[in-house]
Each structure stands twice: as structure tokens, then as C-alpha cells.
């Protein structure tokens, strides 16, 4: 794009911001339909048990109860891509989320009350809550629907390799071997799950008001589960109170709601409260990652050998396929001659894991970036230098055959190294305490020199600046850590099509409607689409509307995942707009008596640069629409990114392009309490091209803070299959008071395939945060951080062990 951009790149408020800020926006649990009932689900009391009997008779007699269903009343197919998850459980339960019965009643209270009247007789059984136990020979089979040709209790095995591992091991000057433990965290969408089902017997049509982020796959899954024709199912997507990957799968409560509505003949809504949300929604995979990685004497990486055991829980969700993304990081983050990667999603009787923003990459990047610090320490190399030496580059085709057609990896690293003053700040762990102190003191000069003092001055909390020196005391130790990442940035080919359809309609009043297959889940993609159309057609944003919530209306799209929406839906829209523009231009050329190259679209006008004359765009539409031959100003386009399915060995260029990012994070550890405070975060991210700075910064800041929670405070604690902390009281999210300013530096690499050069953004910012924090804590107090979250208890314990 040579011409100057008018809207793209300028801060633009979200299209839905006004309705959200005024309370007008309608979320899933705000919906009420005429005659609507409230549904509630009876879940098992014990994670593992035989169900001997279910007696619903008392509940059925409760006034206000309209219908009750158990597995015996319904005829459904299992859900999940492995077909291993019954909607309502029959005969046995295998995890604490298991749905045994469901009630529809006139009020929420009656529905809840009815649940307490359902009498279930259990025979409690021993469960298996550790994936390593589940792999033992004498372990029982946990999920009887598991794929038959896998080894016992393995839901999904993955194997990947490239290069000559032995040769690379032999030429390594240094090899580090580590085991990392990554915790179970959950999305904590502020809006809890809700679905409303409305069934018309007359039309045999089911309408679901659902929070899904994959409406077309959801429609197909729902149809399969309910044994219905997909075309009889319409999905309407109300505004979503947060997604972050949690709405990728369909969960049992959704078909259950449909079944209740069909049986009752009335609309039914099921809405979780927070406790049910914690108990019943999926989590990020816990993982045990064994990694050994090597470097030669110059610090060039030689190989990574990785084995991962992930706790799948009792059933399988898309989340089991996270190794697909992880292997990209192990094989291709930094140049790497050889890689062997194995991962196993293992059934246990724990609550099942799902997909979560980053999709395995936070775990993988943690392992890679922690190991790099260890390699640097072993080799006595600078931690920044070793990363720059191995950084990915433009034009690189990796061992996995990912093609980096644009690449800001090195630039991102250099940026955060420079801006954070990394070189003057970090210390290698072998250095004595006294030298450390010196280094830290001299670092304060760097701080001022590189302009960092500015931040403290502008910060209202002046005391922060004045206490910098005192805080480097015996008690408070500071450290800085570095980490980077690679992630798909142009979709991910995991489904027969990774495409998106768009229809644009320009009406005779000059009002543009964009009907896109893509979905808005709060990430701001519809605003970006509006901006693109506005840029191309010169139509004011307030005259543009995006329709994206109804499967009966919108064209197909695979869904929101893999940070793909701006890239794929953006390119799709550009295709449609181009066709529309051709139509307008050929008419405008006649009306303005000018050449097509001279046309300019601006402020609702089409102008001729040559003659200086202009005509209102809506007038041109009317000329097309109402004159012979009359035609509508409406065009459709389907965009399929230029990516490939990977072969059986998982090789191939799976995404249209790739995003890179680096973060440098400074922390302060209170060695008396073990508390870790994040002082400063520097983020550089290769976004291709900034489309909407407001939306982009919001994604970055939000991602980093989610990463901070992952690093420091969050863990869903499960003991013997029971969730012990299902509330915000005990599951600690970062609050406004916990987060420092986040400094963000976009890197524009102008991707040749992205819309205006842009690439995917959404998942990247949280991926390097936890390893950067862990590296910083390690830098501050010289202990190795192998587990998350880095709680005060763990820090204190490690400090104590070091002294002993």
C-alpha cells in the first residue's frame, strides 16, 4: 500500500463500546424469551463412582418443575473430537463435572431446589488423579470410549522429529536437562457460561443463543450430538463476557439445554454461577515437561529433546491437540538443527482440560526459555546475546517447514533488551552477593540514562523512584528476565478449510453492511473490519455496521482461534470490498468522465483526481441500483489463507504467517515474605502492521496480565479430583493494584500476505510473560524456577533450601 492510510493505524474506539459502556449490551444471561424456563444440572457428588440408581420422582412433583432428563430419557451421540464424552452420564461417573440429570423449571430457585430432591445412589470407587499412575500397566481404563488403537489411557499421542539428534548431541558443548511442572489455570471469563435454547415443534427448528466462538463447527457438533439435521439449527451469538479459548468446544450443558427445551416445548436457559463456572469449565492443561536442550561452544543451539505428559482429565476437548502448537515452539523458536518431541494427553479422573489463549504455547515457551537461561549460565554467556545469536530470521524455513515470510523476532528481542536496559541489569547467578549489589547500583544509572526515570517521574507514586536504591537491600532483591515466542499469525490449517466468507452490501443511502463469518468475542475484530472497509471505500465508520452473530445469515468461517480473525476475516473483507469497488468504480468512471486510476474514495464521495470533480457514493449506488441494467451493490468473497495441512510427521507450513514477540520483565523479590512484585514490563511484538492501536494495546496489556497471573498467583487446586478453590477469593486473579505499567513497542514487518501487512495478535502477549518472570526471579535470588505459579511459599522454601 503506497497511498497514505486515513484510518488504518489510527486509534479507533470499538464499534460496540457505546452499548457496552451504557449497559445496553445483551450478554448470554441477559436474554429472556417469552415463556422461558430455567435449567439446572445435577452433577456428581464424587469424582469416580458407579451410579446404582437415580430417582427423580420427588423432584418431578415439586410445583414449578416442568421437566427432568437423565441419560435414559435422551438419545444422543457423544461429544468431543474423539467421541469420548457422553452428554448425560449413565451407569458411572468419571470426574467431578459429570452431568447426571437436568431440570427445567419456572424459576432458577425452583430448578435448584429440584436438584436437591433428585436421589442418586452412588457406589464410590477409587480414582486415578495422576497421569503417571494412569500410564501404569495395572491402571484401570478410565474412559471406555477412548480410541481403541491407542495405548491404555492415552487419549492422543504426538510424535515429531527433525534433524539428526545424535549428531547434534555429540557436537553440543553443553546440555541441560530439566523437568518443568505447569499448573492448572482457568479462563475466568467475567461473564459466566450461559446458553438459551428455543425449539419450534412446528418448524422442527432449534435456535441456540450461544457463546461459542466457533459457530459453524458448533452447529455441526450440536447436530451430530442431538441427531438432527445441521440446517435445522440456528446459532445466534449474543455478546460474550470473555472467551480466551474457553468457547472453542461445545460442552455438555449446551446440548442438555437444547434437550430440555425440546422436551418442555418452551425455551430454556442454563446460566452458571461463578462456582459452577469454576467447577464445570475447562482449564489449561497441566503438564510435566521433560526437556533436554543443547548448545555448541559458541552458543548456537543444537537440539531439543522433549517429552510431555499432559493431564487430559476424564474426557477430551480440542485442548488435547495443544501439542500441535507446542511442537512449533520446540522445533522452531530460535534456529534449531534437531528436535525430537513426544507428547501424550493422558486420561485421569480430574476435570478435563480445554483450550486456553496460547494453546499450549505458554507451557512450551516456558520450557524453552527457562532452558535457554540455564544454557547461557552453563556456557557463561550473556542471556541476551545467546538469544540474538539464535534468533529466527526472515526467509527462514524451519526444521518443521514453517516459512517465516516476515520475521520480527530479532527486532523484538533487540527492542526489549534496549528499552529495559537489560544489559546493565541482569546478573548471572554465579556472581557473589557483593558484586551483585555493585551491578545493581550501577544499573540505576543505566535506568536514568535510557530514559526509564521518565516513567517513575510521570507515575503518581513518586515514592517508587526514591526507593529504588533502598529496595536493593538485603531484604529486597531485583532481577530481570527475558523471553520470546513464535505463534501462528495467519490462521492455522487444522480443519478442511481455514477460510472466512464475507458479504458486503452498500445500500442506496450510502450505508455499508458487512456480513462476516467471523465472530467478535471482545477482541475488537469487528472494529478492525469496519476500519478496513472505511479505509477502502471512504465511508464514515458511523455508517458501517458489522453483522456477525447469526449462522442463518452469515457466510461460513472456521471460528475464532489461532489469533486468526484480523488476518483471515480482514483478507476476506478486502476481497469482497475489492469486488464492490470495481462495480462502483466502473459506474463512477462513466459519471465523472475520468479514468479508473484517477478515482479516490473519501468522505462518502468518489472523486476524480484528474478533473477534481466528485460524486456522492450513495448516488453512484442509486445509479447502479435503479438504472438499466439495475443491479445491487452487493458482493461476496471467500478467503482461504495460503497455508497447508501438515503431513503425517507434522511438517508443513501450517499458517499464512507467524507472529513473534519478546518481553523483558523486571521483578523485585521480598526475601522475607517470598512475595514477587512485577516492577516493569517491556513488550515488543511483531504485529506485521498496526491496524488499530487501541485494540492492539488492549490485547497486549490484557495478555501480559493474564501471563502474570499464570506466573505468580493462579492455580485451580484439585485434590483427588475435587476442586478446592472455586471462587475469586481463593483463585487469585491479578487486580488493578498488582500490575505495573506495561511498555509496548509494536514491530512492523509488513507481512506480504496480511491485510495491510498485519498479522495475528491475540494470543502472543501472554506467551512469553511467565518465562520472563521466572527468569527474572531466578536472576534476582539465584534459585531455579521449575514450577508455576511462583508463590511466596515456593520462593521461601527455595531460599531456605539454598541456605541449608
Amino acid at each position: 500500500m503506497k497511498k497514505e492510510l486515513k484510518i488504518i493505524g489510527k486509534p479507533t474506539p470499538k464499534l460496540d463500546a457505546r452499548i457496552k459502556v451504557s449497559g445496553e449490551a445483551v450478554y448470554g444471561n441477559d436474554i429472556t424469551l417469552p415463556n422461558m424456563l430455567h435449567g439446572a444440572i445435577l452433577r456428581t457428588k464424587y469424582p469416580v463412582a458407579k451410579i446404582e440408581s437415580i430417582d427423580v420422582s420427588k423432584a418431578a412433583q415439586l410445583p414449578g418443575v416442568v421437566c427432568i432428563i437423565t441419560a435414559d430419557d435422551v438419545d444422543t451421540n457423544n461429544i468431543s473430537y474423539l467421541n469420548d464424552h457422553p452428554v448425560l452420564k449413565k451407569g458411572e461417573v468419571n470426574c467431578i463435572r459429570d452431568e447426571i440429570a437436568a431440570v427445567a423449571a419456572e424459576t432458577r430457585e425452583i430448578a435448584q431446589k429440584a436438584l436437591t430432591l433428585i436421589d442418586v445412589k452412588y457406589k464410590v470407587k477409587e480414582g486415578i488423579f495422576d497421569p503417571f499412575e494412569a500410564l501404569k500397566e495395572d491402571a484401570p481404563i478410565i474412559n471406555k470410549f477412548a480410541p481403541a488403537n491407542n495405548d491404555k489411557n492415552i487419549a492422543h499421542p504426538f510424535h515429531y522429529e527433525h534433524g539428526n539428534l545424535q549428531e547434534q548431541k555429540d557436537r553440543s558443548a553443553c546440555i541441560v536437562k530439566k523437568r518443568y511442572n505447569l499448573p492448572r489455570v482457568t479462563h475466568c471469563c467475567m461473564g459466566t457460561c450461559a446458553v438459551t435454547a428455543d425449539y419450534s415443534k412446528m418448524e422442527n427448528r432449534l435456535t441456540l443463543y450461544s457463546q461459542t466462538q466457533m459457530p459453524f463447527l458448533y452447529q455441526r457438533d450440536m447436530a451430530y450430538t442431538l441427531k438432527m439435521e445441521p440446517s435445522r439449527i440456528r446459532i445466534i451469538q449474543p455478546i460474550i463476557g470473555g472467551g480466551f479459548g474457553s468457547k472453542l468446544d461445545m460442552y455438555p450443558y449446551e446440548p442438555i439445554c437444547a434437550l430440555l427445551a425440546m422436551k418442555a416445548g418452551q425455551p430454556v436457559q442454563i446460566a452458571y454461577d461463578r462456582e459452577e463456572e469454576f467447577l464445570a469449565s475447562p482449564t489449561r492443561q497441566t503438564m510435566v515437561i521433560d526437556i533436554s536442550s543443547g548448545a555448541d561452544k559458541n552458543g548456537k543451539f543444537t537440539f531439543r529433546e522433549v517429552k510431555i505428559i499432559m493431564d487430559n482429565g476424564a474426557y477430551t476437548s480440542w485442548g488435547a491437540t495443544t501439542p500441535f502448537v507446542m511442537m512449533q515452539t520446540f522445533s522452531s523458536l530460535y534456529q534449531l538443527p534437531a528436535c525430537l518431541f513426544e507428547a501424550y494427553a493422558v486420561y485421569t479422573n480430574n476435570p478435563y482440560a480445554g483450550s486456553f489463549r496460547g494453546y499450549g504455547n505458554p507451557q512450551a515457551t516456558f520450557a524453552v526459555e527457562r532452558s535457554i537461561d540455564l544454557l547461557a549460565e552453563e556456557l557463561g554467556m550473556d542471556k541476551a546475546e545467546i538469544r540474538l545469536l539464535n534468533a529466527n530470521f526472515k526467509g527462514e524455513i524451519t526444521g518443521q517447514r514453517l516459512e517465516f515470510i516476515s520475521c520480527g523476532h530479532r527486532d523484538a528481542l533487540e527492542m526489549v533488551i534496549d528499552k529495559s536496559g537489560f544489559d546493565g541489569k541482569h546478573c548471572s547467578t554465579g556472581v557473589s552477593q557483593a558484586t551483585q549489589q555493585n551491578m545493581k547500583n550501577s544499573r540505576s544509572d543505566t535506568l536514568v540514562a535510557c530514559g526509564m526515570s521518565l516513567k517513575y517521574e510521570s507515575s503518581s507514586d513518586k515514592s517508587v523512584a526514591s526507593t529504588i536504591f533502598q529496595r536493593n537491600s538485603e531484604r529486597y532483591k531485583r532481577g530481570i528476565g527475558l523471553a520470546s515466542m513464535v505463534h501462528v499469525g495467519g490462521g492455522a490449517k487444522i480443519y478442511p478449510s481455514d477460510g472466512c466468507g464475507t458479504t458486503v452490501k452498500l445500500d442506496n443511502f450510502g450505508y455499508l453492511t458487512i456480513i462476516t463469518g467471523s465472530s467478535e468475542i471482545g477482541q475488537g475484530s469487528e472494529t478492525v473490519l469496519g476500519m478496513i472497509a472505511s479505509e477502502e471505500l471512504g465511508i464514515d465508520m458511523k455508517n458501517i455496521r458489522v453483522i456477525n452473530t447469526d449462522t442463518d445469515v452469515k457466510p461460513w468461517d472456521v471460528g475464532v482461534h489461532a489469533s486468526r480473525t484480523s488476518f483471515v476475516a480482514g483478507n476476506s473483507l478486502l476481497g469482497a470490498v475489492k469486488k464492490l469497488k470495481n462495480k462502483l468504480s466502473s459506474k463512477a468512471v462513466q459519471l465523472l468522465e475520468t479514468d479508473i486510476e484517477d478515482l479516490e474514495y473519501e468522505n462518502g464521495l468518489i472523486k476524480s483526481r484528474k478533473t477534481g470533480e466528485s460524486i456522492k457514493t450513495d448516488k453512484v449506488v442509486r445509479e447502479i441500483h435503479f438504472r438499466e441494467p439495475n443491479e445491487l451493490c452487493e458482493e461476496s468473497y471467500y478467503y482461504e489463507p495460503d497455508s497447508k495441512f501438515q503431513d503425517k510427521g507434522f511438517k508443513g507450513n501450517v499458517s499464512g504467517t507467524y507472529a513473534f514477540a519478546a518481553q523483558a520483565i523486571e521483578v523485585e523479590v521480598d526475601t522475607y515474605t517470598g512475595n514477587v512484585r512485577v516492577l516493569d514490563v517491556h513488550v515488543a511484538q511483531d504485529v506485521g502492521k498496526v491496524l488499530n492501536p487501541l485494540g492492539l494495546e488492549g490485547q497486549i496489556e490484557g495478555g501480559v496480565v493474564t501471563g502474570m497471573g499464570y506466573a505468580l498467583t493462579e492455580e485451580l487446586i484439585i485434590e483427588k479430583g475435587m476442586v478446592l478453590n472455586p471462587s475469586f477469593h481463593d483463585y487469585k486473579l491479578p487486580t488493578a493494584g498488582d500490575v505495573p505499567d506495561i511498555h509496548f513497542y509494536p514491530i512492523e514487518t509488513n507481512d506480504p500476505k496480511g491485510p495491510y501487512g498485519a498479522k495475528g495478535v491475540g494470543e502472543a502477549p501472554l506467551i512469553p510473560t511467565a518465562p520472563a518472570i521466572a527468569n527474572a526471579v531466578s536472576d534476582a535470588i539465584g534459585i531455579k524456577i521449575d514450577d508455576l505459579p511462583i508463590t511466596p511459599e515456593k520462593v521461601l522454601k527455595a531460599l531456605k533450601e539454598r541456605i541449608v
Partner: protein
Amino acid sequence: MKKLINLTINGLSYEVAVEPRQTLAELLRYDLGLTGTKIGCGIGDCGACTVLLDGVPVFSCLTLAMEADGCDVLTIEGVADNGKLHPIQQAFVDIGAIQCGFCTPGMVLNTLALLRKNPHPTEAEIRRALSGNLCRCTGYQKIVEAVQEAAITMTK
């Protein structure tokens, strides 16, 4: 047994029959259809349900509807003036402090109470004032900036 209470909500007077155990959040959302007030936890942990009760921010999920008898309640629906956003709302929109928007009503009302009490808060004071309002999307930075921006417009 239900009891009749009288209260003003967003400038309109209401007489409603409420259950003794019914919360203000439930009254607003389910009985009166004022769904702008969000319930994120129902137990006082997240701040999404914040409304102003006689000008004071309260968690409406922890406030019994009966406690609002005779009170003046301001919910998010009453903050804008006939389609014109309040400067706080405008700042949230312009600065990009809204993503999924679920925390927004509570944030806006809490900010309103803060700025009435303290028209020139420092960043630390803003962060402290909002630390009972959870947001999973924004990382809080843009929210803090929006509050700062609103403070400037409102004292101009």
C-alpha cells in the same frame, strides 16, 4: 412473605414487592430488567455488580433489595444523559478501556464515586479504588488511563 419497598432508580420512583432474601442485583436484573448491572460472582469478589446507593458504591449482589428501601439507586443505565455519554463513559470508549465489557458497568460506577470524592486521584489511588473490580481482558492499564482522562475532562 414479600414486602413492598419504595426506591428511586436512575431518577424514577418505583414501588416493588421483594422477597426478604432477594438481593438488589436480582431485583434490578430479573424483576426490573435492568440487565446492565452484571453478576460476575454473586458473592462480593468481583465488583461487576457495583451500583451507587445514595451515591456510595455497593456490591448489589451482597445488598438485600430491602436495604434499598427509601434509597436512591444509580445503575449503569442511568449514567448517560439521554444518549449522551457521561465523560467517564466517553473516556472508557475513547481510550479503549472496554473489551468484552462485562466489568465495564461496575468500573464506570466505581469511577464515578471515586471522582466525586476525589476529583484528582493519583494513579496509585485509582488502582487502589478499582482493585475490587476484576477485569480479565484489559490488564487494567487502559481503564486507569480512562479514569485519568475523565478526571481531566470533568474538572475542566
